[in-house]
């Protein structure tokens, strides 16, 4: 049995969680039991009710790469959910019960660090939402005791930026999926798994992280290296969110700031920015929609939001220095 804490969940796993390092102690709430099961067990669970596909994503080749089916008790529209079946081609499938406390995974025949990308990147964030948390499609680091998040479209460089910030001495809070919850008038950010996927883009980022003692390599595949980083032990107030946009060459020259990213405070706040940054768009029951709105409103009211327009001439290390400097100013006194 492995006991870990990630995404605001206490994880009770009947298998090893690669790269978690056991450094974040369980908090005694939101217990999620994780088990490895044969595929036939998932078929049986899914066959106990009526399935409806609520989300699907295509890979680069256009074929379906991932999907989520909602399995409900027989009885037509409005019947309560029994659970959700998440699938990721090549990685495996997982059953997540409706309460988010029971996760069963039929993993593909791959090394654990590879199939667990599916677990960490899709299944646990989904379970977090079922457990009453909200999740943003964001990477985050800790600045002066507060979390600073970076939101960007897939492939825009969230991970590279977050890891360059780690090289500047900041701790990684999460890569790609940030679990948050309302606390008073603000938001608390829960650390994710201390793992990241580094693209092989010629910058030697994974090597630099390892040489600096910030990371160790779990493995490499599909043009990426999976690294394990130093985990953060506690949840942090979320103090700033940077919305990163990669601009084209023409746009860069129009800003007159070709050698620097343009970072501007967003005021007034556009609610769509925050709502669009939430990670899970498949769960749309009234309770979740209300919580999503509540969390986004709290984020708009308590965190400093910044628009970052980054031209192609600005590389990730340079952008990281700019973001760090602004984040230090936005963080306020150490928490």
């Amino acid at each position, binding site marked *: 049995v492995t006991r870990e804490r990630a995404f605001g969940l206490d994880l009770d796993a009947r298998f090893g969680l690669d790269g978690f390092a056991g450094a974040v102690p369980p908090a005694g709430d939101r217990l999620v039991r994780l088990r490895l099961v044969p595929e036939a067990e998932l078929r049986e669970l899914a066959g106990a009710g009526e399935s409806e596909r609520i989300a699907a994503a295509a890979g680069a080749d256009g074929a379906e790469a991932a999907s989520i089916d909602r399995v409900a008790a027989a009885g037509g529209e409005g019947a309560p959910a029994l659970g959700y079946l998440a699938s990721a081609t090549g990685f495996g499938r997982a059953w997540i019960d409706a309460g988010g406390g029971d996760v069963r995974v039929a993993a593909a025949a791959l090394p654990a660090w590879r199939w667990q990308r599916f677990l960490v990147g899709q299944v646990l964030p989904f379970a977090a939402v079922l457990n009453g948390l909200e999740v943003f499609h964001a990477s985050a680091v800790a600045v002066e005791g507060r979390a600073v998040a970076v939101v960007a479209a897939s492939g825009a460089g969230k991970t590279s930026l977050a890891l360059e910030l780690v090289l500047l001495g900041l701790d990684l809070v999460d890569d790609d999926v940030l679990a948050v919850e309302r606390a008073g008038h603000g938001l608390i950010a829960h650390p994710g798994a201390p793992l990241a996927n580094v693209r092989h883009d010629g910058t030697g980022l994974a090597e630099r992280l390892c040489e600096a003692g910030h990371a160790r390599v779990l493995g490499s595949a599909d043009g990426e290296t999976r690294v394990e980083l130093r985990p953060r032990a506690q949840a942090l107030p979320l103090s700033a969110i940077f919305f990163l946009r990669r601009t084209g060459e023409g746009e860069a020259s129009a800003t007159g700031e070709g050698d620097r990213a343009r970072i501007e405070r967003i*005021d*007034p*706040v*556009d*609610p769509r920015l*925050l*709502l669009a940054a939430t990670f899970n768009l498949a769960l*749309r029951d*009234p309770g979740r*929609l*209300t919580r999503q*709105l*509540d969390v*986004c*409103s709290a984020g*708009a*009211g308590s965190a400093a939001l910044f628009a970052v327009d980054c031209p192609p001439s600005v590389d990730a290390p340079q952008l990281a220095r700019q973001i760090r400097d602004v984040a230090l100013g936005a963080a306020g006194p150490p928490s």
Partner: protein
Amino acid sequence: MRVASREDILDCRAVVPADVVYREFGDETLLLNLSTGNYHGVNASGARLIALLPEADGDLRLAVERLAAECGVGAGEIAEEMAGFCVQLAERGLLEATAR
């Protein structure tokens, strides 16, 4: 259900339906219809009118009068605009207006 017209909606009693929630985002307020999943943004004046409704016991005309007083203008100056706003909300299922 028939939605009241601009001409008669201010004579209605209005409530925000139970399946509509709203939260502030700075100067803007977002209303969410939980039945449809649709969002609707309103400005500060619209949000204030919605907030005044319970205090006015759902009396839309009274709520508009109070809003006008807060803004330092006559109710007649904003009545038509607010009536149109309320009709829009009602058409989107974000306000239930019934004849008094």
